[in-house]
């Protein structure tokens, strides 16, 4: 649509002035369906461990750690309750796309996410790790929450705890952004900015710009459950802020294994998109 309008600026002008000749927005791409028959069947199995109350640290802060790990499973689309035929985010969201992000999203769905940066071992980004099939752990110190991940190249992330919520000046654009957090009762609230605009919000392909600003809320509602809310405020990519939701389960006793994506990575060069036309 953009290129046609660019070629015929007169039509664009007339359309805007008269309210005529407006092109309907392209439709949002649909779920392309499971990767393979039976994909993800094990993902939603109910944990055998009975949940207890949410644990707390000695000083009363919520405890996001313990003997185990958080395991999101594959939740491929942060704005749909089902994607690739299995459970995805907790809620459907009507995403307020800008034209370029809708176009980009549709292209990525159509070409089966062949240009996914994570498939090239680049960092998963935020909030995607809360929707991604790699376990992680949260380690809390007095002034930091450290996330360690099994996925990508055995990635880590630091959230600096600062009730004043101050980011450093002159942030360098990064994949994971500059994260500053504080506790609100039993919720860890993290403000993240300073992104490079290259990470995808999910495997499906919701795009970001370098104006991305996130507000994340982590609440351990019982020993086995982490509720996550993330507000995506990215005026470079979406017309207004929107919020995505997920629930991540605790896997008791799970320890993280070293996983180096870059080791012998040969997959991405064979990713050519959808050839079943």
């Amino acid at each position, binding site marked *: 649509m953009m290129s046609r309008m660019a070629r015929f600026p007169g039509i664009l002008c007339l359309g805007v002035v008269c309210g005529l000749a407006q092109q309907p927005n392209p439709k949002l791409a649909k779920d392309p369906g499971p990767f393979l028959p039976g994909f993800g069947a094990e993902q939603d199995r109910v944990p055998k461990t009975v949940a207890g109350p949410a644990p707390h640290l000695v000083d009363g802060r919520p405890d996001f750690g313990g003997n185990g790990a958080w395991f999101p499973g594959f939740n491929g689309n942060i704005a749909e309750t089902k994607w690739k035929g299995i459970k995805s985010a907790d809620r459907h969201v009507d995403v307020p796309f800008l034209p370029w992000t809708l176009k980009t999203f549709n292209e990525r769905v159509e070409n089966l996410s062949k240009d996914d940066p994570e498939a090239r*071992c*680049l*960092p998963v980004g935020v909030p995607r790790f809360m929707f991604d099939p790699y376990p992680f752990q949260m380690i809390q110190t007095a002034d930091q929450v450290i996330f*360690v991940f099994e996925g990508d190249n*055995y990635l*880590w992330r630091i959230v600096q705890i600062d009730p004043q919520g101050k980011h450093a000046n002159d942030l360098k654009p990064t994949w994971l952004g500059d994260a500053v957090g504080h506790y609100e009762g039993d919720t860890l609230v993290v403000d993240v900015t300073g992104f490079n605009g290259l990470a995808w919000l999910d495997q499906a392909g919701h795009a970001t710009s370098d104006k991305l600003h996130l507000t994340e809320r982590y609440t351990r509602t019982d020993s086995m459950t982490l509720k996550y809310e993330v507000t995506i405020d990215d005026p470079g990519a979406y017309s207004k802020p929107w919020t995505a939701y997920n629930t991540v389960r605790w896997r008791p006793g799970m320890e993280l294994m070293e996983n*180096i994506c870059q*080791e012998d990575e040969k997959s991405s060069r064979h990713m050519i998109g959808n050839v079943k036309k």
Partner: protein
Amino acid sequence: MKWCCLIIILAALRIDAQPHPDFSGVWLPGAVADIGLEGAVPFQPWARTKFQENSAAKQNDLDLRCLPPGVPRISFQARPFEIVQSSNRLLFLYEGGAHVWRQVWMDGRSHPQDPNPDWLGHSIGHWEGDTLVVDSVGFNDKTWLDDAGHPHTEQLHVIEKYTRTGPLAMKYEVVIDDPGAYTHSWTVGNSLSFLAGGRLEEDICLDKISK
């Protein structure tokens, strides 16, 4: 008397809460490109040949392809890392290399019988006085011991000793024991500087090569 008891109790609690030195924070190793310069390296013949090959073919260095530098090489490169002390393990978060982390189990466990061959190995630690001793096995044979290209095999067994010698200084000593590559174990040292108030930055090696 009451006050005296209280002080003793408080002191005991304090000792209990912090029984070991606090290494947490950001550290910067001194750059040592060739750990063989300190003394004669007890090469086996094939390892000497391999070292000479590696030194002459730096383009084969997997560090340049953004793979983890491995242990102990990562402690001889001038790139900051952060130590995090939690109840049952220490975490090492590395700014350089492949943006990887490493865990040192402090809960008394042993190494697994048949560990996966990893880039960073399987590490268990304990305190000997004020010295942290980290014992690591379970390495793959792909990493080099240093930038110069000292090779090793999957039999590599590394014992690292960290001793804080001042507020801003740590002595680092590492015993390299690899009967597959060296005739006997050998020891190398380095010094680490504490970066007070330092914060790690995100530095993604792949950003520089995957265009």
